[in-house]
C-alpha cells in the first residue's frame, strides 16, 4: 500500500536524518582530534536561515539526546529573539528540557559569547560561527587558505596584525581575535569579545564551533592550550571597564553591555543574563578571570 505522505508534518528526532547526524558526529570527532582545524561537513539546509545559526544547530541536533538539558543564548542573553526562536525549534524537535541556568545545562548553544560562569567537564559549549576562515580577511580564495593552513603559512595574518598596530596603536580586533590552538592551527574563536578568549585555554568543557553557511566545524578540546596572537612587546588585553559597575547589580569583573535609557543616559549592565540574575539573587558563581598585563 502506498502511503500518502504528501504534506507530512512529523519529523525525525532532532529534525536531521540519522545518516546525516552520523556524518556530522564523525566530523566532530575528527575536529576533536585535530584542534583548531576546520573540518568540512555536509551542512544540510535547516528551517532556520543561513547565517542565523544553522551550524550551531547542526552540532546541537547531532549530539543532543532526550535526557539532555539545553540552554541557548544570543549575545549573552537567553531572552534574545533569535535565541527564543532556536530554543523553540530545538524543543519542538527533541522534547528536551530547556533551561536558562548555565550550571544546569548539559549542552549550551551560544552566539558570540562564552558564559561567565565556569563550565565543567560534563558540559559542551557550541558556538555559532559566521566566518570560520580566520585568514579570509587577508586571502579571499578558499583553495589558497586551505594550503596556507596545511603549510602553517601564517605570514599574512601576522603582517595584518602588525600593520593594524602600526596604524592605530592597537591590533584592532575587537571580537573574533585570532588564536593559535594547541600550538599549530590558527583559528577564529568566533566573534566573542576579547574578554572571553582566555576562557578557551585549558578549560574543562568541550568547545565546538559550527559554521553552517561555510560548512566547517572546528574544535577546542578540553585542556588544550589556546594563545591569542600577540607580539612579545604588544600583548593581548581584554576589555577594561575602569571604575564602572553594573547598574543593576553593583558588581564588576564581568563583561558589561552599554545601554541607553529613554533619557539618553548611558548605563552599563552585566551582559550574561543568567549570570546577572544569579548575582542579584544569591552568591556569585565562579568565573575564570584574566588579568591584563601592564
Amino acid at each position: 500500500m502506498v502511503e500518502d505522505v504528501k504534506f507530512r508534518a512529523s519529523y525525525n528526532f532532532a529534525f536531521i536524518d540519522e545518516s546525516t547526524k552520523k556524518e556530522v558526529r564523525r566530523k566532530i570527532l575528527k575536529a576533536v582530534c585535530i584542534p583548531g582545524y576546520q573540518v568540512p561537513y555536509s551542512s544540510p539546509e535547516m528551517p532556520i536561515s543561513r547565517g542565523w545559526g544553522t551550524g550551531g544547530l547542526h552540532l546541537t541536533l547531532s549530539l543532543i539526546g532526550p535526557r539532555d538539558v539545553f540552554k541557548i543564548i544570543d549575545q549573552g542573553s537567553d531572552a534574545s529573539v533569535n535565541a527564543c526562536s532556536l530554543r523553540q525549534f530545538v524543543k519542538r524537535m527533541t522534547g528536551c528540557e530547556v533551561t536558562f541556568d548555565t550550571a544546569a545545562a548539559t549542552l549550551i548553544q551560544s552566539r558570540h559569547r562564552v558564559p561567565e560562569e565556569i563550565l565543567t567537564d560534563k558540559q559542551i559549549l557550541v558556538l555559532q560561527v559566521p566566518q570560520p576562515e580566520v585568514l579570509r580577511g587577508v586571502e579571499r580564495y578558499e583553495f589558497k587558505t586551505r594550503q596556507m593552513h596545511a603549510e602553517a603559512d601564517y605570514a599574512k595574518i601576522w603582517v595584518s596584525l602588525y600593520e593594524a598596530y602600526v596604524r592605530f596603536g592597537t591590533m584592532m580586533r575587537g571580537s573574533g581575535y585570532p588564536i593559535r590552538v594547541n600550538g599549530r592551527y590558527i583559528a577564529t574563536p568566533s566573534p566573542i569579545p576579547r574578554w572571553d578568549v582566555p576562557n578557551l585555554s585549558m578549560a574543562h568543557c568541550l568547545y565546538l564551533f559550527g559554521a553552517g553557511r561555510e560548512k566547517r566545524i572546528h574544535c577546542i578540546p578540553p585542556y588544550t592550550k589556546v594563545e591569542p596572537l600577540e607580539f612579545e612587546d604588544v600583548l593581548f588585553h581584554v576589555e577594561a571597564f575602569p571604575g564602572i559597575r553594573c547598574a543593576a547589580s553593583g558588581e564588576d569583573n564581568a563583561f558589561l553591555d552599554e545601554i541607553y535609557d529613554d533619557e539618553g543616559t548611558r548605563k552599563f549592565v552585566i551582559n550574561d543574563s543568567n549570570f546577572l540574575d544569579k548575582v542579584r539573587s544569591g552568591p556569585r558563581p565562579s568565573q575564570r578571570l584574566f588579568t591584563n598585563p601592564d
Partner: protein
Amino acid sequence: MGYVAVKGGQDAIDNAAELVEYYRWRERPQPIETTQVRSQFRLLIDKVMGEGSLYSPEHAALALQQVEGDVFEAAFILRAYRATLQRRFYSDTLNTRDMFVQRRISSAFREIPGGQVLGPTRDYTQRLLDPSLARDTPGIDAFLGEFESRIDRTKLRGVTSFSKVIDLLMSEGLMRRDQYTDEDRRVVDITREAIKFPAPRSARLQMLARAETGGLMCIGYSTMRGYGESHQTVGELRMGTVPVRITDQSGRKRYIGRIKVTEAEMIGRVAVKKKGALPLLSVGYGLCFGQNETKVICMGMLDSALRNPNVNSPGNNQEFVLYHTEGVESYGFTNHLKLPHYVTFQAGLHNLRDVVDRAEKQRGVRAAEFAAVAAAAAATPKPRL
C-alpha cells in the same frame, strides 16, 4: 527607574508572527486556493522549484502561499523540507533526447532537423499592461473549446523526439565529445559533502542548477559586457518533459514519472593553449527544473566561463560565481545583519575609543612640545644681522 531585564523575547516573536497573519487577512480577501497558485503562477513555481532544488509543484505552490509570494523564503522552505526527506535513490541520468518537447529553438542555424518549434513563450509579445484580466472573467471554456477544436488528432502520433543540434556539429568534427578529458570528472553530491575548490564539474553544475536566477543573470550578463570572455550562441534551447527512471534494490529499472525541465546548450570556443591546437567549438551546459530559460542560458555561459579561470573577471572565477549565486546562503547571510550584534559592535567601540584617546594624548603631547619650543625661542635673544 530600576533596570528591567530584557525578557519577553518569546512574546515578541509570537506577536510578530501574529502581526504577519493580521496584515495578510485584514482586508478580508477571498482566500486563494493552493491549486490556483499551482496552475496560474506556473513560472514562479518553476523558479522556486529550481532554487529550492525540489521538484514538486504542489509543495512549491504551498510554500509560495505560506510566505505571501516571497520567492527567497519559498525556495528556502523547499530546501529545508528537502533536507528532512530521506534520499532513497539516485535517478539514472536524464536523457533529454527522450524529451517530449514543448519548445525547441536554435539560434545557430536558420533551419534544423525537426524544425524550430517556438512553443509557449512570451518572447515575441509586446509587454503592454493588459487590464482585461482584472476586469473580465476570462472565458476559459470558450477559449479551450475553440483551441482544442483546431488540433488534428490524426497528427499526434507523428510527434517524435528531436535530435540535438550539437550532433550536427559533432558529426562534422567541429565539436568533440572528449574535449575536457583532463578536468576533474568525479561525480559528487553537494548536499552530502562540503565542496572544496577547485570544484569538480559535477559540483559546479549542481550548484549552478540550484543557483538563484537573478544572481546567475547578473554574472552571466557581466561576462557578455566585457567582464569576461563570452561570445556564445544558443546552440539549442529545449523545454519539455523527460522520463525519470531509477534502478531499484533488485536491479530492475523503474519509471517513476516525468518532470519538466529546460535545457540549454550554449556554443562557444575551446580556449586554445597549445600552438597548432584547433579552436574547436565547446558546449556550455544548462539544465533546471521547470521552464526557466534565463537561468539555463546564463548557466550555460557560466559553465563555459568557469572552465577558463581568469583572475581579472568575476564570471570566470569559480569561487566568486558559485559562492555568491547560492540563493539560500546569500539571503541568509545578508539578512543576518538584522540580528543583534551589540557585543561585537561594542567590542569595536572599545577599540576605537582607545585609538581616539591615544590620538588625543599625542596631540596634547605635541602641543606641549610645540609650546615649549616656542617659549624657548621667545626667551632666546635674536642675533643681530
